[in-house]
């Protein structure tokens, strides 16, 4: 046989090095951008807390930064956000988990192939469409049942946010349940377990870490959701647990001020950053918890 001439590895080595440098740069750009955002957020927040005490901000129950006498208690906005999160969670967690269980364990292959993409389309709908849907479809429906409901109310917006986050829960949970090996299911079946028992005792516990992570992700998404609440939940910061009232969330407030004509550098302007920082910290903590769950309960399977 003819002797084969191999090309030198030198050219390849240079390419390897170049690729490494390019990829490192790309990685650093995204890291520095994030640091830059956090830095500018914290800087203005720091300026805000020079004028308003942290204690007043975190424990005050009145939020009237634009009207004299001004109050800077963020609790009404936090309560508004929490109300939306709870309503959205009550919708997205049971519906999302239910559809995930159905798709992974009960649906015949053909049905799954057909249903899964449809469910994922829900995630692709722009949130402004959901906002519109909340205003024109959900709110009138609620007002039919409870006539005293305000035009803008937490319930309507919460339901819309919940529907929007169903695919987050269902898609991630279903992937986790599908990843549970059939050998485990068969092991339980071979001991005389029924389908429900296999799902309840084997599939869900094995996939638990990802299921919980999907819940937290959906909650974190609901905390940060802006368009729907700005459109349908109202703009009345109020410390209430009545979902039929008009409220304001942290994100809703930020939108309102960003679009209004608040002078640059004023105290009202700085509130944006304080609220933004708080929002950032909440979602950041939720994401850390979610990652922790995925890691801690990652099994050998």
């Amino acid at each position, binding site marked *: 046989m003819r002797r084969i001439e191999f090309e030198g590895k030198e050219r390849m080595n240079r390419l390897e090095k170049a690729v490494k440098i390019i990829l490192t740069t790309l990685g650093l750009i995204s890291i520095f951008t994030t640091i830059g955002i956090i830095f500018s957020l914290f800087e203005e927040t720091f300026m805000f807390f020079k004028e308003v005490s942290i204690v007043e901000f975190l424990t005050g129950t009145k939020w009237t930064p634009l009207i004299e006498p001004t109050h800077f208690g963020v609790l009404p906005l936090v309560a508004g956000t929490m109300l939306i999160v709870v309503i959205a969670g009550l919708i997205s967690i049971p519906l999302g988990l239910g559809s995930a269980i159905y798709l992974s364990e009960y649906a*015949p*292959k053909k049905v799954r192939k057909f249903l899964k993409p449809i469910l994922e389309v829900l995630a692709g709908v722009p949130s402004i469409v959901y906002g519109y849907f909340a205003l024109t479809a959900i709110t009138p429906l609620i007002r039919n049942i409870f006539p005293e409901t305000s035009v803008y109310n937490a319930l309507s917006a919460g339901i819309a946010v919940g529907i929007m986050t169903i695919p987050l829960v269902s898609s991630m949970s279903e992937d986790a349940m599908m990843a549970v*090996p*059939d*050998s*485990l*299911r*068969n*092991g*339980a*079946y*071979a*001991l*005389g*377990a*029924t389908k429900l*028992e296999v799902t309840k*005792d*084997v599939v869900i*516990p*094995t996939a638990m870490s990802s299921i919980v992570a999907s819940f937290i992700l959906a909650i974190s998404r609901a905390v940060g959701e802006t368009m729907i609440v700005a459109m349908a939940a109202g703009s009345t910061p109020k410390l209430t647990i009545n979902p039929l009232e008009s409220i304001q969330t942290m994100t809703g407030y930020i939108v309102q001020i960003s679009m209004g004509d608040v002078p640059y550098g004023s105290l009202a302007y700085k509130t944006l950053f304080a609220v933004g920082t708080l929002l950032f910290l909440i979602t950041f903590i939720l994401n850390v918890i979610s990652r922790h769950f995925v890691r801690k309960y990652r*099994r*050998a*399977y």
Partner: protein
Amino acid sequence: MEPILSIRNLNFYYGEHKALKDVNMDIYKNNVTAFIGPSGCGKSTFLRTLNRMNDFIENVKVEGNIIYEGKDIYSKEMEPVELRRRIGMVFQKPNPFPKTIYENIVYGLRKNGVNKKEVLDEVVEKTLKAVALYDEVKDKIHKSALELSGGQQQRLCIARAIAMQPDVVLMDEPTSALDPISTMKIEELVLELKKDYTIIIVTHSMQQAARISDYTAFFLNGEVVEYDETSKIFSNPRDKRTEDYITGRFG
């Protein structure tokens, strides 16, 4: 000798593909019966028809009869969940649940309404001793089963199967994922267990079949070429194809 399972004219289809062709066989009580044959010959498919584990595969069809205690296991009177309590199974890859050793063993019992602590404790100790795992794990019975080695996990799976006090234990290549020492322990265990149970084992290894089984069936392309006492199959096969296979000419 009284057969515990009688298989008559069994055909099995995956969609259009006929995976088992007219299988007839009697399985005898308190014996070890081995199924051998090359990959794709239908031996595992046949094993799974015996406790209806094929029910979970879409688009399959079964024809013929499998008689167990006077009843056809594919008839309407037979509840598959009940059948699987009586005919247990151990799989190719050890598949303990992500639970404690204790909970793995008592899982089947709990699902059938046995919850008394004394009963469960006794079963755990007895079955762990029966599979020769007790001394190795007695201090970590309430720890995760996933911490055990592969061979220990497989013995735990056998313990889990016999905790249900089944009549028959089906084993689908139970040692194929294990090292030689673990394999040897499982083989010793099988010989021990046949006093109390009827064991049917699918194996890739002819030496294993020769070592532990009383009866051997040789499968080829979905047919049972030869079924007889193991000693006869290995010393004096009637069919040329069986002889070719056991002498290593193919497969």
